[in-house]
């Protein structure tokens, strides 16, 4: 069996008395699409915040590429190759779409303090940025101000930013929510293509159909605990999952 790229071991996060995430373990393997499923308030976004370093876990460890990353500040975790998007999109509103991507483009290359003074926007950089924008389908909007874009485009912009940094793992937090039907199809194809380029993807999603169709494996959370893990078709038949999702009424209805 291959080494896991990311492994989450017994991670918990308490807010006062509330156990937002409670001893969750799972592994993610290279070039996998892993879905995190769960009802509202199950702790999915908190889990992402723990992995990407926005929160420190109360207990447990997170290992990435064999090294421990919990406790590191977010930007150091990101520099090791972990990128993410946000459920509530966070574009750099005062910059253009192209500039949004150019900031991200510089993260690895201008990492050292002496190098940040280099100018942005050389021809080569712009070409590179436009390639990524082309991949996510935002070429025409490159000069538009990010704050003026509709939601669907912003979700793709966030993915473009993560792609150009060169992150090996992408955490996508409800990237499908609020999208039109045709946009959902486009985004599904985009995510598959990103995976085929050699990246690993973890996504939080509410839309069952999307999750089942897209993911190789699924982890289900409820009230901060992991209640199931496995291939989509196993998850669909898992009793604990059905109960968490549909409630007892749902089971009796189904039977």
């Amino acid at each position, binding site marked *: 069996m291959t080494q896991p790229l990311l492994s989450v071991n017994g991670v918990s996060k308490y807010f006062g008395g509330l156990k937002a995430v409670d001893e969750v373990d799972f592994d993610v393997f290279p070039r996998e699409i892993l879905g995190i499923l769960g009802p509202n308030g199950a702790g999915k976004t908190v889990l992402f915040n723990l992995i*990407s*370093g*926005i929160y420190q876990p109360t207990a447990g460890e997170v290992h990435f590429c064999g090294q421990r990353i919990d406790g590191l*500040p*977010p*930007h150091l*975790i*990101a*520099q090791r190759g*972990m*990128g*993410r998007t*946000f459920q509530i999109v*966070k*574009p*750099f*509103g*005062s*910059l253009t779409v192209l*500039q*949004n991507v*150019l*900031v*991200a483009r*510089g*993260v*690895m290359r*201008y*990492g050292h*303090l002496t190098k*940040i*003074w*280099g*100018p*942005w926007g050389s021809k080569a950089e712009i070409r590179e940025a436009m390639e990524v924008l082309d991949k996510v389908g935002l070429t025409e909007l490159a000069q538009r101000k990010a704050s003026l874009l509709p939601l669907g485009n912003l979700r793709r912009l*966030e993915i473009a*930013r*993560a792609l150009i*940094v060169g992150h090996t793992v992408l955490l996508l937090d409800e990237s499908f929510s609020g999208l039109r039907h045709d946009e959902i199809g486009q985004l599904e194809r985009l995510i598959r293509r990103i995976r085929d380029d050699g990246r690993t993807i973890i996504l939080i999603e509410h839309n069952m159909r999307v999750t089942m169709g897209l993911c190789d494996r699924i982890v289900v959370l409820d009230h901060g605990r992991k209640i199931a893990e496995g291939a989509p078709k196993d998850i669909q038949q898992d009793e604990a999952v059905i109960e968490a999702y549909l409630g007892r009424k749902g089971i009796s209805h189904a039977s």
Partner: protein
Amino acid sequence: MSSYTITIGTIIVIQAIAVCGLNVIVGYAGQISLGHAAFFGIGAYTAAMLSTKAGLSFWTALPLVIAIGGFIGFLLGLPSIRVREDFLAITTIGINFIVEAVFRYVPFFGGALGIGGIPRIVFFGERLKGMTFLLLCLVFLFLVLLVCWWLTRCWASLACYAVRDEESAASTMGISHVRFKLLAFVIGTSMAALAGSLYAHYMQFINAGDFSFPVSVGFLSMLVLGGMGTIWGPVIGTLILGVLPEIFRPLVDYRILFYTLLLLLMIRFQPGGLLGEESAMRRVLAPILRRGKA
């Protein structure tokens, strides 16, 4: 030009340099600072001490003044990474009051009397005063504007904007918000220190009251009036607020009210300032500029 006009002009240019520094902190990096006069004062006092007590010339002291100003800016900028935006506003007010109190009450800094006898700047054997001093200040302003322009062209500025707009998104992309916030503070306060040094050598006598909190409010008003985050905004704002009182000299009693009402109206109706992106002035000028190009 009469010597009076030159005096007004010199003060305006010196203030413009300080406001450019404030613009880096507030406009580029989006961190509110209501204590900029403190850093202006730290530059002035450092220059004054180095020239009167250590006997250094303006030129040998200048790198030290800028370095010390930047370093103190770094130390006092540390709260900015720990506290939220509205806390930072109050913290910087606090810094201004504390720094002013230190100047006023510590005998080492001349106490309530301030420091006098600061020598004039000597340039190739000539003592600069009047017109020549103004020219020197203009050269420094030009250099500072050049730095500001360069800042908008380099990747560091994009990173600063990113941290300003969405700190958490920037950090999960790999941009350290600590680094860029402190960087803006250091650059902005060194510019203030440069301005302070020029001020000390121009006035030849400085006093804690020159760097009190209302001076910080004045700097911020100039920046808001001109337009935060623009290159020319600080210059325009300083020029207008510097010249207006001279025009309205007969109404001397209503001068401060006029000032504060102007600031209030600006922030209420044009928070982007005169040169801001959606300002009325831009809208009026845009068609003219476009016709000029065509």
